[in-house]
């Protein structure tokens, strides 16, 4: 899908939040959007998801099955968690007994099965957010947009969402996300969108430049300072004492040399990214 010279503002006299933005999104691409508060990240996410349309320009070839998770999900809906997911499952195109079955499965997977029959208004903030995540995953989306969806989730649910995103990407789903945690989904090769001043710049591992994923153990200080190395796009710590970083293939030699120059560091694995 692509964004074709889109522009957005919130009123005739307001400044442009996004201006003349053209972007491409490939199938199965994971994209991380970053930028300051009020810089237009959320607006861009909602435009990509199809929740709204731009004032100028157009979003073309959006996949048919789309899902969006807002940062804060409202409790002011008069449904139980299960009923809401059934409704949304049907809106996502499921039929018959399928919505109810998948709603139950999804709540179980996120560790909220006990709250299936609880009205949304009585749920805790975290459980409400699980319902928001569940509604997005229930219909096997081809495009998944996550606006700080991890915020408010407990540790297990975060890991579940990480795994679910990896699964979806594996199956060719395009995923666009924003998260405050810089190590979020760092194990997966991702494209970076920097949003600010009305424009979006793309950097990191574009589809044209191959990546190398390097796994390192034994480094004192963990991931500290690695993100500053030239060519490194993502840095994460998937488990204690293990650092995984994604580097542009053109710079991978320098990155490896820099890592090996530290005497206690072991290179556990070097593999080709996507």
């Amino acid at each position, binding site marked *: 899908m692509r964004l074709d010279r889109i522009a957005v503002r919130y009123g005739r006299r307001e400044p442009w939040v996004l201006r003349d933005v053209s972007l491409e999104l490939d199938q199965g691409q994971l994209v991380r959007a970053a930028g300051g508060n009020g810089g237009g990240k959320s607006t861009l996410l909602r435009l990509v998801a199809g929740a709204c*349309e731009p004032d100028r320009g157009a979003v073309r070839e959006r996949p048919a099955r789309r899902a*969006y*998770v*807002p940062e804060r999900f409202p409790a002011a809906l*008069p449904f139980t968690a299960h009923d809401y997911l059934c*409704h949304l499952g*049907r809106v996502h195109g499921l039929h018959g007994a399928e919505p109810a079955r998948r709603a139950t499965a999804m709540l179980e997977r996120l560790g909220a099965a006990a709250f299936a029959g609880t009205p949304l208004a009585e749920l805790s903030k975290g459980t409400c957010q699980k319902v928001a995540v569940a*509604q*997005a995953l229930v219909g096997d989306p081809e495009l998944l947009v996550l606006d700080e969806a991890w915020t408010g989730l407990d540790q297990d649910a975060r890991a579940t969402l990480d795994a679910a995103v990896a699964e979806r990407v594996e199956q060719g789903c395009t995923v666009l996300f924003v998260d405050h945690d810089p190590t979020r989904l760092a194990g997966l090769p991702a494209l970076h969108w920097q949003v600010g001043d009305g424009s979006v710049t793309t950097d990191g591992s574009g589809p044209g430049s191959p990546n190398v994923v390097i796994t390192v153990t034994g480094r004192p200080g963990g991931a500290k300072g690695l993100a500053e190395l030239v060519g490194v796009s993502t840095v994460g710590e998937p488990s204690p004492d293990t650092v995984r970083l994604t580097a542009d293939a053109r710079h991978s030699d320098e990155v490896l040399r820099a890592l090996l120059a530290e005497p206690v560091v072991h290179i556990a694995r070097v593999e080709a990214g996507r």
Partner: protein
Amino acid sequence: MSDLIRYQLALLLRSQRWLPPALFFAVLIVAGVFGGQQYGDSLGWCAGMLVPGAGWLTRTVLTGEPAAARACVSAAAGPRRVQGAALGVALGLGAVLAAVAGAFEWTMSSPPPGGAPVALAATARDGAAAIVVGLLVGVALGALCAPPLVRRPATSVLTLAAASVVLLVAPWSPVNAAIRDAASPGPTAFPWWPVLTALLLVAVCGGVVVRSAARYRQALG
């Protein structure tokens, strides 16, 4: 589309937000009963009260969903279809109110005095036409007086009230014309002009509201 209508209908009925406009309309209908009215007058009253009644109901349906929840559904189904479904629910529920109120008015009324055998069928036809006009104009007005076109609740409610009064008293208004036709004692032709104008009005306003739904980007939270 049926799944969206089902969702919007469940959202409205379970939230009980439909109660205030429905009660308001019921009070207006009951307040109009003072015994011994003629069929045409009662049905005309019902048609007139549908303008603010269906208007408020439509506004309630269109504002019933929190912004973040609306964004989730809009991403899945497209904001225009979501808005269209909400309008459909408003029209359907308004039609139910109109039918119940029309039947109530009919049972509470009597034929004109003098015993002239006026065609009750013609009176019922003109009354029903007036009720349809009142319903359509009310829904069109309510759709215009809701976000995204009018965003502030106070402005929206005041506009709805003022426009209802104008539409009831202005001689050029289709509601006014349809009520006059329904109440006139003599034989009349079918009120084509008000009915067609009301249909056009609801189609144009509905189209504008559905189209603008895609451009409506409210702050989430």
